[in-house]
């Protein structure tokens, strides 16, 4: 699990005079939610990046398109995500320069990222992220949807639905109960919004500004940010100490 508070574990190894590998995350993004649906993969996140306990940046894109077939979403240290995007740019550029009609699919990109993350972890110099990789590419069995994740220690797997950070605890129970094969785009958005709303209520580092992105055979679409409606009208909230004198 990535550390989205600045009190991440310190791993200090002095390499020689003047070098250090102490690491903790500084500017962090919170959960990413993603799931496979009928036409491809849908991915969503909020647009916030925190600096410890301060909500420092409120318009951050944590989901980006990669090549023609994939989307990458990241939680954790934002600067490490930017570095990973640069690595992916180099990768997709050399892929394009081959000019052989083939292009890297989501499975290949996931595999590449896994190697990068795991090797950095082995050098005690991790990229402090949980990455979600989703995409659609034509394979031997037709259009194949792919969704997987890899985290800062190199743990990687494929699933029909993924959540990182707090999403592991709050969104995965909902996804496990309500995800079905071949959901329509509207149904998938509703399910994702259900998870995002719970995260908004219960994750202190999430904000009410979300971006949904989808990847299909037509390509990647990242929708403009929007907010969800919250409900605070419970009668118990109107007068909380009414039934309990002496409480607060």
């Amino acid at each position, binding site marked *: 699990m990535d550390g989205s508070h600045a009190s991440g574990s310190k791993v200090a190894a002095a390499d020689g005079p003047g070098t250090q590998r102490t690491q903790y995350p500084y500017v962090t993004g919170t959960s990413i939610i993603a799931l496979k649906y009928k036409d491809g993969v849908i991915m969503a996140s909020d647009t916030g990046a925190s600096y410890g306990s301060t909500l420092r940046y409120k318009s951050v894109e944590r989901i980006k398109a990669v090549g023609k077939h994939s989307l990458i979403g990241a939680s954790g240290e934002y600067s490490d995500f930017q570095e990973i995007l640069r690595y992916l740019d180099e990768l997709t550029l050399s892929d394009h320069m081959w000019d052989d009609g083939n292009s890297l699919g989501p499975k290949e990109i996931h595999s590449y990222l896994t190697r990068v993350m795991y090797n950095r972890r082995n050098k005690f110099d991790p990229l402090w992220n949980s990455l979600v990789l989703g995409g659609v590419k034509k394979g031997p069995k037709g259009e194949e949807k792919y969704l997987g994740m890899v985290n800062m220690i190199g743990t990687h797997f494929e699933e029909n639905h993924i959540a990182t950070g*707090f999403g592991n*605890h*709050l*969104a*995965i*129970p*909902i996804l*496990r*109960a309500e995800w079905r094969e071949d959901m329509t785009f509207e149904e998938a958005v509703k399910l994702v919004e*259900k*998870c995002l*709303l*719970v995260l908004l*209520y*219960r994750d202190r580092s999430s904000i009410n500004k979300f971006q949904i992105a989808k990847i299909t055979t037509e390509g990647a679409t990242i929708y403009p940010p929007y907010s969800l409606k919250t409900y605070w*009208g*419970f*009668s*118990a*909230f109107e007068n*909380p*100490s*009414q*039934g*309990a*004198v*002496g*409480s*607060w």
Partner: protein
Amino acid sequence: MAGAMDLPPKGGFSYDYCRRNAMLADKGLKMPGFLKTGTTIVGLVFQDGVVLGADTRATEGPIVADKNCEKIHFMAPNIYCCGAGTAADTEAIWSARSFNFTVMQLVVNHEFYQGHVSAALVLGGVDVTGPHLHTVYPHGSTDTLPFATMGSGSLAAMSVFESQYKEGLTREEGIQLVADAIRAGIFNDLGSGSNVDVCVITKGKTEYLRNHQLPNPRTYVSSKGYSFTKGQTEVLYTKITQLKPKVEVTEGDAMEE
């Protein structure tokens, strides 16, 4: 005259070792960590009262100590309390009276235990002023809420509540939602498991639905039954040592009185 806040000599904790422990910690001794109770407990308010729910797994570290324990405790005919560990202590020390229970628990947690035990409780009941649902935290703070979850499975259960709770639920909807939330804890949290207990409290009536759902049945039972007849285990070697001849019974005291 003893004040209400004086601790009876046997109650609470003895803090005599605190100074020694601090000194040992300075010398590098690693203190055992504080574990969150392996549990999912929930409560919600519906139109006629409150519904409480709990899983039935009791863990000792990584081992399931009790597969079907009871986490919903009786406080009064119209007040039940979900909790684990210390809640049982609480029941033993204080018997149910017409007290404001949350204030009492607050005092107990704050003065007695000073937060050193995980007494995280979901307390619900119905009285003349209507249905009430409270949570009590280890250090003694309380909340009054329309729905609440506690324990290691609380996030899984809370995600169910946050996405599906609304005011004015009927009894059936309330029980269904509580069971869904406990099942989310059972299947998504390793510290919770086994069965779903439910307790419905309304004005004048309380129903304790022990093992309301059993979503983890034993899937394989041998049709031949399990009997272990003599001869089933091969005996390789028998040696009998008589103890009696080795025992010397001497008259008189071996030791001075």
